């Protein structure tokens, strides 16, 4: 299953040597780190919980209580961001961490001053961009170390969007909790609210009707289509090919309006609710089918221009390459990882309802981790989402979309984890409940949290002028990372 609930007392507490050994063993086996966080225990001690997703679809959880530990970030770079987050939020020390920068700067008034890796030399120059960027986009700071036109290193410093969501979630769920989830990353409203509902439904043994699952699926795939189509347009704009840029901008709006047809809000706010969904689609089924058909035809026409245009392909191909090994080492997720040939998609991995027939077809696409691959993977996913939605709408049966209004009491003293394949990739929510069944801690891991470092690596052999293109091909969330 894509969720797991355990009694907190049943989670193995290892000593730190065993803990490190166990982590190494699991990573070497090719298991994925899906969640890693710390809970302060007082007296300088921290309880660390790490969760793996095994290749045979099991979620493995174990823990340790300690105050410090050698860092594993150099050996396993995918852990580096988790370790940084734990150091920042709990005061735990990972000794010899290669880059112990804060993730969210939550303890200081102002961000990103003087914590930069620098290359020294006469012909080196440094370029700083942000936090306020040229476009209508969220804030982040980018620092390039350049030798002539070539980028030696790009350092990405975030935290500007830090709103303190995880802190505000403690003692929940309450009437605000859902709205924090829906705005954790506003463009992934469905992804995060579905994951949150998996958690609370698992913690209260609530089953969801097939029909409600399909409506959730439709909205998640609409979210994916909207963002992928929008980004394909933006990529096109970044290489100054305007036809696709302008058509996709509008088509993205058509997809958002289809979500609004279901729930009134273009981003799917309020669509998913406890025990199901808030909206019935029987009366708009035919309208939905028509719209999705038109959207796909328009998008197919607009996007196929890209692959035929040599000037576009010249910029897309071999720009911002992330090799498969790098993608695995860094633990990249979602389309960014798939473009590098990492076959990891939670929909085809678990094949849970409503995705029981979903198959990957990455082998067919001839991918090599460049901007083209990331764009092409995303177009391929638009096609697959369209087919999913079309089939669901054809086969959707009658039934309840929701069975209960109020959230039931959650299981006390429990550990819960849930996963969803959002449009950017693997979303993980993890929580611990106290003896009243309230959240003792609630951790949100947006796929951007794994992937930001991938963008930095993509730029390493490139030029600054490749940056907008690489950035859009990933299109990561700032607020999803900063929370």
């Amino acid at each position, binding site marked *: 299953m894509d969720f797991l609930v355990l009694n907190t007392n049943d989670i193995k507490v290892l000593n730190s040597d065993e803990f490190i050994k166990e982590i190494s063993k699991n990573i070497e086996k090719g298991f994925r780190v899906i969640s890693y966080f710390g809970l302060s225990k007082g007296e300088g001690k921290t309880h660390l919980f790490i969760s793996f997703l095994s290749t045979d679809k099991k979620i493995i959880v174990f823990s340790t209580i300690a105050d410090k530990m050698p860092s594993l970030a150099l050996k396993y770079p995918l852990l580096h961001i988790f370790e940084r987050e734990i150091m920042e939020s709990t005061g735990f020390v990972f000794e010899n961490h290669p880059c112990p920068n804060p993730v969210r*700067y939550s303890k200081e008034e102002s961000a990103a001053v003087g914590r930069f890796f620098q290359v020294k030399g006469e012909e080196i120059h440094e370029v700083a961009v942000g936090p306020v960027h040229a476009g209508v986009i969220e*804030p982040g700071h980018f620092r390039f170390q350049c030798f002539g036109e070539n980028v030696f290193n790009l350092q990405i410093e975030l935290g500007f969007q830090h709103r*303190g969501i995880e802190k505000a979630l403690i003692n929940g769920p309450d009437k605000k909790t859902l709205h924090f989830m829906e705005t954790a990353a*506003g463009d992934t409203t469905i992804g995060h609210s579905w994951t949150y509902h998996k958690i609370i439904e698992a913690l209260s043994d609530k089953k969801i009707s097939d029909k409600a699952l399909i409506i959730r699926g439709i909205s998640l795939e609409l979210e994916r289509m909207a963002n992928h189509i929008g980004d394909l347009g933006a990529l096109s704009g970044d290489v100054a090919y305007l036809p696709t840029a302008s058509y996709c901008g509008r088509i993205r709006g058509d997809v958002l309006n289809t979500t609004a047809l279901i729930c009134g809000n273009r981003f799917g*706010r309020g669509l998913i609710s406890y025990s199901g969904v808030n909206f019935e689609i029987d009366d708009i089924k035919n309208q939905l089918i028509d719209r999705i058909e038109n959207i796909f035809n328009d998008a197919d026409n607009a996007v196929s221009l890209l692959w035929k245009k040599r000037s576009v392909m010249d910029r897309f191909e071999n720009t911002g390459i992330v090799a498969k090994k790098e993608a695995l080492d860094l633990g990249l997720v979602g389309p960014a990882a798939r473009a590098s040939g990492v076959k990891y998609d939670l929909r085809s991995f678990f094949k849970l309802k409503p995705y029981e027939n979903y198959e990957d077809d990455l082998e067919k696409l001839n991918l090599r981790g460049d901007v083209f691959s990331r764009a092409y993977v995303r177009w391929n996913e638009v096609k697959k989402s369209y087919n999913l939605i079309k089939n669901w709408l054809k086969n959707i049966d009658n039934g309840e979309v929701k069975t209960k209004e109020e959230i039931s009491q959650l299981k006390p003293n429990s550990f819960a984890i849930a996963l969803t394949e959002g449009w950017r990739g693997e979303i993980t929510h993890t929580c611990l409940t106290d003896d009243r069944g309230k959240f003792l801690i609630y951790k949100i891991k947006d796929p951007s949290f794994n992937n930001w470092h991938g963008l930095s690596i993509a730029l390493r052999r490139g030029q600054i002028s490749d940056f907008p293109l690489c950035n859009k091909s990933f299109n990561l969330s700032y607020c999803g990372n900063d929370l």
Partner: protein
Amino acid sequence: MIDEILARLKQKHRTVPFPFKNIKLSDRYNGFPEIKNPPSPKIEDVIKICPVDALINHDGKLKLDMGLCIFCGKCSKKFPEYIKFTKDYSLSVSKREDLIISEDFHKKSVILREEIYKLFGRSLKLRQVSAGGCNACEADCNVLSTPFFDMARFGISFVASPRHADGILITGPVTKNMHLALRKTYDAVSEPKIVIAVGACAISGGIYRGLEQIKGIDSDIKIDLFIPGCPPHPMTILDGLLRFIGKIKK
């Protein structure tokens, strides 16, 4: 080249004829709320339901603060007899207090100022600053530049630098970490300048009001236009901007 021309024919002309013709939004859209005052003992039950405390009991009178409201519709679902969300997407106002509505309140709109009309009536360049926004308000601002809304035909556009701008458009609740950057951006815009707050977060903090990491827009930065919503529909933003510069007068 022939592919582009064929595509152009297929994609057609889709720009919305607004403001000459109104457009219809989703039947499930929550727009301007209408309020009927409940009997006093009932008010407390009604206001309790709001996740952001946008409903207020003001001496036995039910009021709704649109600057805080996230238009989730929970109140109207539970108490349809007292609160009803209409399909009216024209929500923007010039004064913060005009966002607080009640039963006997007459809907306020943007007041057209002579100096704004003279200076910016034909050209308004804005620098957008996201200060803790979740990327929904940002996305709905961004979409105004696409051919469907095509805000540029009214002389309004987003520019890359505050030095090129007539004002700033703020989204998000203004986090501690963005506070300084927002201030510097504001200072970099030359006078006379205007400030537009888009979305519940920018106007009041919205869902994030009162959290430790949230600072809000400094009180000395005067806001000239409030566009409520979570996020506001692009039509709400466009309508607000057009009223602000006098392109819509009714």
